[in-house]
């Protein structure tokens, strides 16, 4: 009889009415490794966060080692023997390796409160050697490479004698050698009969490591079974699935011939290499890539937030290669950032203030005195709010933080419209908002494209790009790998291009 380590029984979870997981049912065998795969937003992280005690499920039960398990905080999960190695590592760079290993409880001298230094050094050294990490235990973590940090995090998990290890995208920031090293450690843990959940976009890696596979799509379990029954192609087709197209409204215009944005041979060592493309009027150009492919970094370079070492960027024939964001805005370029809470919106300010912020100079009067003309500002902001159908109270009073995610995102887009840009860069414009709001954002994007604006649409949701774009460029490893023109969007081929260039992927597969 098989011994189950973890059993998920009809787990459901929704955020603000949008379902993230529905009735997920599967089990993981004791001492085996499960590869958990799915597109971004498929629910992998949600499921693991529930297991790790970050938040609870709405419905269903988890059984751990046969017993009902319901953690109320991350510490409960740790106590139950689950170690979660987060994608963004949970270490303190200001402290040394040894401090990080024992931060929630140092070995002490007898009953005194003082740290037992000698046994500390010994235990820390033993832990580091168990992950084959050859550094001094007193090294500050900020001096370590991403790969070494990962090993420290794993050593920490081992020090708790964790029975279950969860790896969330562990290889994204690792070099090839570091990755190899990590795999050796994982294999060692497998031999020690630890249960492992391995999440990755690198499907070859998943196949190499896993005894069993589970595929999630849109919060539902598509399939699960022994690893030998899966191939990369089967995994991709199950991750993508088939869905309806009506979600995406149609545009009434076709792509124009004038190139608004020209990017020629842009390179920045360590970030992107030799990026060239043109964006035309009325065009929606999709940029697809997995996390860490360089898509957002490219947008930051184009907008002038980061520098590039080589290449040329121009908007409407104006060279903006090394211009600051302010100059980019003056040159009719607009950038809607990925992280609207931190970068895009002033949450405490009113809707009107947010909308008018990038174009305040348009609303000044009395010449050089530049006093704001508030009524004109309000008038224009109201017009934008109406066009985008922003649901809000009086826009000069309502604070942005009290609006829904969809409406907030409309404000982020709307605030650039007052400045009448020629080119609009959207980075993940629909992340974290519900389906209805997504639909409205799509409508807004179409409307802008119909007015002649060139839109560079960055997204990790392939479905969305194939529904919205005229053309899709696929990025991987900081380079453009492939170009697809509507209607020849083949999701599997696009995904294969996105996976190419990643360590462990054979090029002849595409």
């Amino acid at each position, binding site marked *: 009889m098989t011994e189950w380590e973890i059993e998920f029984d009809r787990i459901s979870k929704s955020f603000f009415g949008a379902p993230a997981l529905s009735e997920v049912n599967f089990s993981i065998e004791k001492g085996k490794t499960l590869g958990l795969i799915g597109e971004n937003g498929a629910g992998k992280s949600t499921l693991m966060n529930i297991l790790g005690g970050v938040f609870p499920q709405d419905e269903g039960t988890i059984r751990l080692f046969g017993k009902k398990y319901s953690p109320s905080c991350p510490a409960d999960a740790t106590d139950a023997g689950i170690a979660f190695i987060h994608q963004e590592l949970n270490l303190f760079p200001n*402290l040394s390796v040894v401090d990080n290993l024992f931060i929630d409880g140092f070995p002490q001298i007898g009953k005194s409160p003082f*740290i037992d230094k000698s046994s500390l050094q010994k235990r820390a050294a033993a832990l580091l050697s168990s992950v084959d990490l050859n550094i001094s235990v007193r090294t500050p973590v900020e001096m370590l490479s991403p790969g070494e940090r990962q090993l420290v995090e794993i050593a920490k998990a081992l020090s708790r004698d964790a029975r279950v290890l969860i790896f969330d995208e562990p290889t994204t920031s690792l070099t090839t050698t570091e990755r190899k090293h990590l795999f050796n450690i994982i294999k060692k843990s497998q031999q020690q009969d630890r249960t492992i959940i391995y999440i990755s976009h690198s499907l070859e890696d998943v196949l190499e490591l896993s005894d069993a596979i589970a595929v999630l799509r849109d919060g539902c379990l598509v399939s699960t079974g022994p690893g030998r029954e899966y191939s990369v192609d089967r995994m991709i087709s199950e991750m993508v699935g088939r869905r309806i197209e009506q979600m995406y409204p149609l545009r009434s215009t076709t792509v124009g011939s004038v190139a608004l944005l020209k990017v020629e041979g842009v390179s920045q060592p360590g970030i992107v290499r030799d990026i060239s493309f043109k964006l035309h009027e009325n065009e929606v150009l999709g940029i697809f890539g997995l996390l860490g492919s360089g898509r957002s970094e490219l947008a930051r370079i184009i907008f002038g937030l980061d520098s590039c070492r080589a290449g040329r960027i121009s908007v409407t024939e104006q060279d903006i290669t090394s211009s600051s964001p302010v100059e980019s805005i003056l040159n009719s370029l607009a950038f809607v950032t990925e992280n609207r809470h931190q970068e895009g919106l002033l949450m405490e300010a009113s809707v009107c203030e947010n909308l008018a912020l990038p174009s305040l100079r348009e609303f000044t009067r009395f010449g050089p005195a530049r006093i704001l003309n508030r009524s004109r500002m309000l008038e224009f902001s109201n017009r934008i709010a109406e066009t985008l159908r922003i649901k809000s109270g009086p826009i000069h009073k309502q604070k942005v933080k009290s609006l829904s995610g969809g409406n907030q995102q409309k404000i982020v887009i709307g605030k650039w419209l007052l400045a009448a840009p020629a080119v609009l860069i959207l980075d993940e414009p629909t992340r974290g908002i519900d389906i209805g709001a997504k639909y409205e954002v799509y409508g807004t994007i179409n409307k802008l494209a119909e007015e002649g604006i060139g839109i560079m649409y960055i997204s990790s949701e392939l479905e969305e790009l194939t529904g919205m774009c005229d053309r899709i460029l696929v990025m991987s490893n900081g380079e453009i790998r492939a170009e697809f023109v509507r209607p020849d969007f083949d999701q599997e081929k696009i995904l294969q291009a996105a996976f190419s260039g990643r360590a462990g992927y054979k090029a002849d597969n595409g």
Partner: protein
Amino acid sequence: MFALLFIIFGLVAPKSFHYQNIENAFKQASYIGIIAVGMTFVLLTGGIDLSVGSNMYVSAAVAGLVMQHYSISPWFALILCLLVGAVFGVVNAFAVAKLKIMPFVVTLGMMVTGRGVGLMFTKSRAVNFPDSITSLGFAELFGLVPYPIVVFAGVVFCAWLLLERTTLGRQIYAVGFSKEAARKAGVSTDRAIFTAYVLCGIFASLGGFISVAQLGNVNAGFGRGDEFDAIAAAVLGGVSLFGGAGRIFPGVVLGAVFIQAVSISLVSARVDLYLHPLIAAAFIFFAVLIDSLRNMYLAKLSRRNIRVEE
């Protein structure tokens, strides 16, 4: 940086290197140093305590008033003084940890409230201390080392022990880096914050007591501005205002001595009195600038690379 500045002062004012001057610098630095040690705990958690000046005033005034009305031993007065300091710490910690109010606002409020309470108790008159206290301020251990320096050394040692050699101490650093990450790592953040603020309160009142023992009385302006000297000493000693970085020894100790050394040197070099605050401010600015540059450098280091260039 310290070496550089000491050399500059050595050249400008060679007198400041006489033994007497160095002992003076340490003696006068001891009360600011003790407060700065307490401040360091709070700064390490990513907070700030502006109420230490008022804390010194209230705790010393209460001790002085009780001594005037009841004949109690100086040791009992000291304990009373530290208790009042601890109350300041508890109130601050409660507001920061439980009510989640920003430390700057909480302690600014306590600074004003404390001063007001002190003025009410004393009716804004100076409180004189009996000789039993002032004799302590000038006594020397084995007739060699002045007591303020002994106490300072003791405080530094205890604080160093707590921060470097206990789990709680290391957790204070973790909380200062990121409260959220610390919670995820299974650290009791409330415990760390309470410890930091309460210790800061106790050390502030202890520093006040030592200062009183040297001055002999407490007037309405006692302790005013000392919070900034304490913060400056900690920051000069390498404690980050962003939390999570900095050490008691030698950093903060040197910072406190340095601040006093600057003013002693300025006096012995006969620098125009009106220039003193300007020069002191310039040093503090310089120290904070270095802190900020360090953070910018760290941010740059942690930027993720996507490609591996061959």
